[in-house]
């Protein structure tokens, strides 16, 4: 009997150790071995080929490093070898979800340098098409974010609405993704008969149905639990990374090029700039969702007040930008898209620096992912709404 305590002693010791161990774990003082977790380059949640190297300590991400460049096509070099009209079709492929928006800043930059006046009808149609493309893009991210969190139903709703708008745009441009429709000075051609009614019907359907989809997700308890206070991005940090678009506005950056420095005819339309307050996944998603309605309102106003007239300004047969430098930015669906165009007077640009929104947005990911849980990683990645073609260019 006297031996029993001796036998039990080590076990007792173990028990005490383990309770101390549990205490240390719960207080976060225990340092365990770190592990490197590789996500991608082919991961369904990355919308392209994106690789994330996450150093994790238990369930916590200590450090995350995005590895980009798998889709680097070198657009900045390629555009130096092509003339301006060829470039329109090339840059349409940067952010493949918002092709027509990508073409806009180049056209605007050339019009600024060449001092071309664009007819009003072309400007209105540009606004309408750009905003329709924004709805397409936002609906895509609306469904993909939900799908990544495990809700598959929004996918079917979003694609039903997308199809109508997509069809309306197809009747105008002939393309479904890469439109190649904006020209320096105006548009490729006028819209066909019946387009206005078709487009109006498609966006009105979105306005009517979107509140239902909103309830489906933003009122959903599981969705809230997985997004509220997850992956917060502070406003000042967002500024220093140059985060813009729905992600920036989710972090309460009240910034929208369409309102602050109106290009085209945006100053004639009535729309609101939605901002979030906490900068978490939920706010980013909320902003994205509400921008769909605002865009639909702009399309309605633009098409209702569509003036008659020509769709092309006076453009010389050979597009040659005079010497000069100009920075033009537009509000792309995912943020600020800017072109710094340097021209030495030739048919080809001397240099174009393309400032894409996803690039700056994704560069803030290491900061946001630090000290989050592995389980939240996909929610955070999904809420950053990036297109890899836009990051890699």
């Amino acid at each position, binding site marked *: 009997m006297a031996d029993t305590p001796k036998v039990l002693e080590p076990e007792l010791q173990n028990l005490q150790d383990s309770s101390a161990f549990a205490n240390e774990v719960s207080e976060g003082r225990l340092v365990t071995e770190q592990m490197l977790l590789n996500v991608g380059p082919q991961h369904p949640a990355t919308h392209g080929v994106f690789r994330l190297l996450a150093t994790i300590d238990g369930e916590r991400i200590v450090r995350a490093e995005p590895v980009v460049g798998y889709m680097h096509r070198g657009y900045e070099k390629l555009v130096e070898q092509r003339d301006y009209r060829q470039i329109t079709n090339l840059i349409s492929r940067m952010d493949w979800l918002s092709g027509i928006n990508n073409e806009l800043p180049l056209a605007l930059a050339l019009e600024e340098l060449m001092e071309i006046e664009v007819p009003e009808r072309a400007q209105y149609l540009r606004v309408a098409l750009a905003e329709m493309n924004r709805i397409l893009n936002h609906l895509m991210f609306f469904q993909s974010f939900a799908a990544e969190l495990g809700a598959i139903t929004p996918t079917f709703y979003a694609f039903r609405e997308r199809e109508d708008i997509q069809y309306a745009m197809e009747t105008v441009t002939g393309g479904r993704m890469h439109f190649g429709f904006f020209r320096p000075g105006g548009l490729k051609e006028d819209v066909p008969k019946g387009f206005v009614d078709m487009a109006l019907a498609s966006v009105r359907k979105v306005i009517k149905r979107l509140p239902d989809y909103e309830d489906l997700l933003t009122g959903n308890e599981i969705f809230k639990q997985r997004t509220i206070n997850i992956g917060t991005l502070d406003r000042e940090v967002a500024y220093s990374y*140059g985060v813009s678009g729905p992600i920036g506005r989710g972090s309460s950056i009240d910034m929208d090029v369409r309102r602050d420095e109106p290009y085209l005819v945006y100053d004639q339309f009535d729309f609101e700039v939605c901002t979030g307050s906490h900068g978490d996944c939920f706010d980013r998603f909320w902003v994205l969702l509400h921008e769909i309605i605002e865009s639909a309102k702009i399309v309605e106003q633009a098409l209702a007040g569509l003036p008659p007239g020509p769709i092309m300004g006076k453009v010389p047969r050979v597009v040659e930008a005079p010497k000069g430098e100009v*920075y033009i930015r537009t509000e792309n669906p995912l943020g600020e898209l800017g072109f710094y165009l*340097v021209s030495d007077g030739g048919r080809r640009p001397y*240099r174009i620096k393309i400032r894409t929104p996803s*690039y700056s947005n994704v560069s803030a990911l290491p900061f946001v992912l630090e000290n989050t849980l592995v389980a939240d990683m996909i929610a955070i990645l999904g809420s950053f709404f990036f297109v890899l073609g836009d990051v890699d260019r």
Partner: protein
Amino acid sequence: MRLEPADALDRVKGALGERVTDARLNHGQVDLTVELDKYVEVVRILRDDIALGCRFFTFLSAIDRSTYKYDDDDQRETGSAGSQNKKGGIEVLVHLYSPDKIWHVNLHVPLDFDAPVCPSITGVFRGAEWHEREAAEMFGIHFTDHPNLTTLYLSEDFEGHPMLKSFKLPARSYVKDWPGAKDPDEAAAAGGR
């Protein structure tokens, strides 16, 4: 409150004084040329001065002006003072934006063409990290004090700096010239059909 470009230029001149070598307006945006040793200081003032408020980091890149067709009367000077390449050097270009006062500034920093070295501004704007990595691999600029100056897009063993004008696209440099005439006028001159 919107700041008109001309007012912005006045304020910049007042706040920066002798630190900038040239300040002008270009298409409604303020254009500054800054010497290398004042560069980080100027960026910090642009961000921290409340009257300026350029808190939004738009982009950082570089321009290789070695084949730019300058006019004889072109006043623009790039390339650091005293170096051989006054015109047609390489420069770092930084674009900042003030979200509250709505004005833009383009910062041109001329570098030595043969050995471009530039201080990093990652201490001022965190977002500059990726932009500097890209400029480093594409133009061969060395950014001192950068926390992690590895390649961003290119593979580790890639040779050369693709965005330099001396780097020719393989598709353009190896192929033979088109054998026939390139446009009707040329064909007529050559007596062809």
